[in-house]
């Protein structure tokens, strides 16, 4: 499992802000590095799936943890 290089707290943010902030954070990462995002918007599950599909980054995991959604995304 790749180590998490950066974490992004997107709790309380509505679509599309978690995506916007994730996009910015990922742009600062090197290829292969992992960004972990924590969000509370239930729509973010679908949003991050589409985000990864469209950007070519890998969605390593998408889990629900105590009302929050945690996504690990590896930069392509």
């Amino acid at each position, binding site marked *: 499992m790749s180590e998490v290089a950066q974490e992004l707290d997107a709790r309380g*943010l*509505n*679509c*599309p*802000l978690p*995506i*916007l902030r994730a*996009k910015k954070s990922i742009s600062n990462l090197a290829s292969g590095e992992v960004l972990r995002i924590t969000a509370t918007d239930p*729509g973010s599950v*679908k*949003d991050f799936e*589409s*985000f990864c599909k*469209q*950007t070519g980054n890998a969605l390593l995991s998408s889990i629900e943890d105590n009302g929050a959604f945690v996504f690990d995304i590896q930069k392509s």
Partner: protein
Amino acid sequence: MAKRLKAAERKASILAVAKVLFADKGYHGVSVDEIAKRLGVSPAILYQHFLSKEALYEEVLSENSAKRESYIEAILSEPTDFVSVLKRMTKIYVESISGDPDFLRMELMSALEGSQTATSFFERRWRSITDYIEYSLNELKSDHVIICSSPKMAGLMYQGMLREILYTKYITEDYRYKDIPLKTMIDELVKMFVRAIGKDTK
């Protein structure tokens, strides 16, 4: 299998008829009997699918929620400056409303009726746009790109202006603006908004 499909079809037709009636008369203005009558079935049939009128109303809303606007395209496309993204997000929202103006009526009705479920549903829908404006303007403000004093208010004002355009086109159908195409109105709104936040002044 055939029977299950039939039940699903029945449910869909109840939702479709209920949506139109709720949009025209509001939650309190419509009875289960009226919905059943419009469908040509007995109220008992409706209660087979929905426990109560409230449950039916919530399902009408959540059905729309499942078709929620996706702004990913708007965020990922180029160019990525604030105004371009806002234009794309607005276009997505307007297209979604144009495809189903009944929800605009339901929003208006629920604001007057004070239904908590509906109010929070519509608030969430608008928040995508207002939160984006507030967040981005705060960023631009700290970079001294704009002179807007209240990004939060800017979001609210934009929502108000956009909603007024949609009401004018889809609810009141005001004759004074009949000749101005929707797209022209939206373009004009964005132009005025950008000037108002002082985007070009620094």
